[in-house]
């Protein structure tokens, strides 16, 4: 059975989705969702164990040899990413029951879980596939389900947020298809590895350059890279709490992977990549994201929206690591993919607890919440510390490696920028601390009970992981380092 691991990773949640529609029962669908999420986690761990040490698994779907058939291709990079997605999925799946009951009308529960399973399957499918067009198909599965999940939010603005994301996301996906089309017309193949092997032989590089541009812009739209992030704050702010946590922790991370996969494993082998100042462009946008989005975050009235802008800024750190284009830089970026997934996942899960009790997470409504919901609030503070990058949290680890990578290149000013932008994070995290602990709770807030254990425990698991991996960096940095080496190997 182990030889079927790559396909099981995707097909288990994929088959669960129609089963949920047939069951037509919210509770049963939830049980199924938890089951497939944990199965995915087990499969992802097994996959990572198989490929650690530089292994490569190739799985020919339909038993047609690639490039004629579709290939699943798992190496250290995919396995690392699939693990991140399934860890978050496993935690969120347990958590979402209570949250969904409060935020989604009962008759839509089973459809909510169906969409969740589809989104999970889509993201995992993107992670493990070795075929450019198959990647697009799974990108669409995850995107379409995401639009619905966002629009199921309680506020009517969720509908508009879903619609805007649909427009932006589809433009992004179409850009991506155009890019893939140009590459296909130049190489005659859709298999990524085959494409990489044939690209250096291409005589006319103009289509390749155009493809690089289209794929970069298209994926940047999905990635919410500044200034293409406009859909993200509304989508995160108005989506149901569990959805926000899941998306913030996984969807943008998977897009980062797609970008890296194309840059290093497809374009990397040809000389085209060096011809364009991609690294410099990425650097500028990353820095802009870090500063501008953090500044905007400071001025938000809604805690969820504030952390949404913070996400845009944190994506900047990830792409900054990528733009440094060295082993350390890539490792920093990839470590931050994992670390930020943990941190933001935890933060949004905890905010979901507040939303369950109050219904909204606006600053004026939660004054003094630190006393009414001590565990939730303290968790948010710890998560905030990790966002800032305080030592003994995962955030520190990523920033440490970013600074190292910057200094390695002799770019002390980038290191300086990383540190200064963290100060902005201090400001917005402090706003929460101030409101939660230094204001007198009004009657409504004092009457609140702590969030239910089924929500608190998963969230705290992630917070605990934030601290644990902040102290013991062996696993995360090891995994990210192996992935970075794998990517750079393809570029040579």
């Amino acid at each position: 059975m182990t030889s079927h691991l790559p396909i099981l990773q995707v097909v288990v949640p994929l088959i669960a989705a129609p089963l949920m529609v047939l069951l037509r029962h919210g509770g049963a669908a939830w049980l199924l969702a938890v089951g497939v999420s944990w199965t995915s986690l087990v499969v992802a761990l097994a996959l990572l164990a198989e490929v650690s040490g530089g292994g490569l698994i190739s799985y020919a779907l339909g038993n047609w040899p690639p490039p004629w058939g579709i290939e699943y291709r798992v190496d250290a990079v995919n396995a690392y990413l699939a693990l991140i997605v399934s860890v978050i999925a496993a935690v969120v799946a347990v958590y979402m029951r209570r949250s969904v009951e409060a935020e989604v009308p009962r008759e839509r529960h089973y459809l909510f879980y169906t969409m969740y399973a589809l989104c999970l399957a889509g993201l995992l499918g993107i992670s493990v596939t070795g075929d450019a067009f198959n990647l697009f198909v799974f990108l669409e599965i995850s995107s379409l389900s995401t639009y619905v999940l966002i629009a199921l939010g309680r506020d009517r603005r969720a509908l508009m947020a879903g619609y805007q994301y649909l427009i932006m996301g589809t433009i992004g996906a179409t850009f991506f298809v155009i890019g893939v089309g140009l590459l296909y017309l130049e190489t005659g193949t859709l298999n990524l590895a085959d494409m990489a092997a044939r690209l250096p032989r291409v005589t006319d590089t103009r289509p390749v350059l155009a493809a690089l541009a289209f794929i970069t812009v298209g994926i940047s739209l999905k990635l919410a890279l500044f200034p293409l992030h406009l859909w993200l704050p509304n989508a995160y702010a108005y989506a149901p709490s569990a959805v926000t946590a899941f998306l913030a922790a996984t969807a943008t991370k998977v897009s980062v992977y797609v970008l890296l996969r194309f840059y290093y494993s497809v374009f990397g082998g040809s000389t085209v990549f060096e011809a364009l100042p991609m690294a410099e462009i990425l650097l500028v946008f990353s820095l802009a994201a870090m500063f501008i989005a953090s500044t905007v975050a400071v001025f938000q009235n809604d805690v969820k929206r504030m952390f949404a802008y913070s996400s845009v800024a944190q994506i900047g750190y990830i792409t900054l690591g990528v733009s440094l284009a060295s082993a350390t830089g890539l490792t920093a970026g990839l470590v931050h993919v994992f670390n930020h997934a943990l941190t933001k996942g935890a933060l949004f899960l905890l905010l979901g607890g507040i939303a369950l009790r109050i219904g909204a997470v606006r600053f004026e409504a939660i004054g003094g919440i630190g006393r009414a919901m001590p565990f939730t609030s303290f968790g948010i503070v710890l998560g905030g510390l990790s966002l800032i990058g305080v030592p003994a949290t995962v955030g520190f680890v990523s920033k440490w490696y970013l600074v190292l990578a910057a200094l390695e290149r002799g770019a002390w000013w980038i290191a300086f920028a990383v540190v200064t932008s963290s100060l902005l994070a201090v400001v917005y995290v402090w706003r929460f601390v101030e409101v939660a602990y230094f204001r007198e709770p009004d009657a409504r807030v004092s009457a609140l009970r702590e969030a239910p254990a089924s929500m608190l425990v998963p969230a705290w698991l992630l917070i605990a992981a934030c601290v644990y991996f902040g102290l013991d960096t062996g696993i995360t940095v090891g995994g990210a380092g192996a992935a970075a080496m794998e990517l750079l190997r393809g570029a040579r």
Partner: protein
Amino acid sequence: MNIASHYSYWATIFLAIGGLYIVIARGNLVKKLIGLAIFQTSVYLLYIAPGKLIGGTAPIVAEQFQVYSNPLPHVLILTAIVVGVATLALGLALVVRIREAYGSIEEDEILTQDRDRAN
């Protein structure tokens, strides 16, 4: 490398520009979706046109033909069409709900309503 031998691509380019323009510039939610659909159809030609061989025939194997046009782009675009209509259906469902919630399908009006409520 002359422009005439690439005429098939010019249709793609024109449709892509037109579709994208409608999506970004227009404020009507239905019209945006139509623009999006046109933008997506431009991709069909990008894939299909180069697959055609003059003197070739549709890729259904029969004894009397030797040259066939390339079937792979056809398969890919079949998938793309399906994705397109799926997106359209979902987008329209959202528009219907937006209309029920806001009483409008103009982007400006809706955003104004939200801003008024926020203040």
